């Protein structure tokens, strides 16, 4: 990978795509993890740090390191920050429903953060910058309309290991780059434990499956375990809905996307 060229392209992307819709500011959730740190650094380069609002949204059970690392990152980049704890928002609904299922609770946290970001986006007249990478989008390891929601996503076509490479290139704090990835939706959570494999393993296999379009035969020949590949395939397939807009019943003569085909309208 050529991190300098990639960095340049992603900054141009943010600047041009936001600019042509008349936006000069960005809002994003800064979690203390590597993905949002990279998005934040790119946004700071594209819009200037003073035009980036990094919102930190801890829940009551979030690991204190997360907030500390987010501060570390924001300070290093010089972006503006705002802390919006989401404990009351989440608990208000979760307690009313008597919710204990950690997946449901996690999804509510992710969507509560989306609500905060889009509100801050309106207050700031800034676009919400996404932080989801290609690996997690492929695996569906994200919450629909939660952390998956954004206006512009510079990382969505980068595998996790490429995000790490970019993070090192961007000289982000080592505390962030070197720690184990975690969605931090509950105590002690680890992405890799949740998924049952490492990002390094997933990235290599997904790269062969998606970019290189290898067949199962070729993947097995290369040394991948069949069960592992089947697990990835299953995740990619069942989560495809998260990558698409909602299904609209097509009843008129011109339906969105199928025969009403336009790129986003540009306001210069």
């Amino acid at each position, binding site marked *: *990978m*050529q991190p300098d*060229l*990639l960095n*340049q*392209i992603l900054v*141009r*992307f943010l600047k*041009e*795509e936001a600019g*042509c819709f008349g936006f000069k500011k960005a809002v994003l959730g800064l979690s203390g993890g590597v993905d949002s740190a990279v998005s934040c650094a790119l946004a700071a380069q594209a819009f200037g740090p003073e035009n980036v609002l990094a919102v930190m949204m801890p829940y009551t059970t979030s690991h204190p390191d997360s907030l500390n690392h987010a501060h570390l990152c924001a300070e290093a980049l010089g972006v503006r920050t705002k802390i919006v704890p989401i404990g009351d928002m989440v608990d208000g609904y979760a307690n009313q429903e008597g919710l204990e299922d950690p997946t449901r609770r996690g999804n509510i946290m992710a969507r509560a953060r989306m609500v905060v970001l889009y509100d801050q986006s309106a207050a700031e007249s800034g676009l919400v910058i996404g932080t989801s990478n290609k690996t997690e989008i492929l695996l569906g390891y994200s919450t629909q309309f939660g952390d998956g929601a954004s206006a512009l996503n510079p990382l969505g*076509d*980068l*595998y996790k290991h*490429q995000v790490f490479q970019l993070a090192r290139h961007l000289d982000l704090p080592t505390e962030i780059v070197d720690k184990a990835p975690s969605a931090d939706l509950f105590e002690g959570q680890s992405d890799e434990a949740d998924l049952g494999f490492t990002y390094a393993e997933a990235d290599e296999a997904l*790269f062969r499956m998606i*970019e*290189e379009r290898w067949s199962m035969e070729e993947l097995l020949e290369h040394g991948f375990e069949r069960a592992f590949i089947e697990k990835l395939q299953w995740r990619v397939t069942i989560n495809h809905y998260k990558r698409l807009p909602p299904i609209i019943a097509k009843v008129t003569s011109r339906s969105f996307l199928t*025969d*009403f*085909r*336009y*790129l*986003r309208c*540009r306001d*210069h």
Partner: protein
Amino acid sequence: MKTAVRLIQCNSRLGDWEHNKSMHQEAIDAAVRNGKQLVMFPELSMTGYFLKDQAHEQALSRDAEELEFLCEASKSISILAGFVERGRDGRIYNSMGFFEDGMLLSVHRKVHLVTYGMFEDGRDFAPGQVFEPVRSKHGIFGIMTCEDMWHIGGAYLYFLDGVDALLVASASPGRGISAAGASEGEPGMASNRTWKTIQDHACLLFQTPVLYANRVGFEDGIIFGGATRALDASANEMGYLDSLDEGHLDVELSRALLERTRAITPLRRDERPELFAAELTRRNQGEQA
């Protein structure tokens, strides 16, 4: 005879005719001021590329009033610019217009529409049917639009015509910067490396200068790769824009150099088009059988 050419690497705005018109006018005026004789723009330079349903909304007949400013400007300089053409029968084409001496002298309709991967040309446009060189006062040129160059036929036909240069207009996305595997470690985008290889080959096989103008900028997250480039008939690089910024490349086409190159290694003289034609016919019959 020498011809001063300027290749424009621009960022057209999708569907924004007025903006693109000003951009063309400014670039043309500057080229005239700088003594250029021919200025070439990328594919669909007047409209932007991923038009989808806008294709027919942007379409113009060859005698449309909107193209008048290019005719007018061509009294001072020859111009190659891209637009969506509406044929008399209603078919829509991805066209490059060659404007000279106050008129639209010639139109190349993209022959090889690209309809795979991220591309939908074949859905929005009808394919051009001919590779007809334009006979300009500056020489005979073979115009090709992007994918036209990925097939050997067009460049070969222009080679038989003895064109003085291939003018290749492109709206080619830049991709493959993050790819692991074979391209790992090689600088730049994989797509631009491929373009260079294709240009070099066409140039060397057909002893024809290649002038390649590509776009920059984004359309819905797709980046256009720039890499505007010019080669003389021996594939020596006359210029290369290694940048994702808008800009231009100034080169000079030399008739003397072209003639010398073709005299030293007489590929056209030794080419056997009649054999090729017979072989094509034989295979074509075989395919139909």
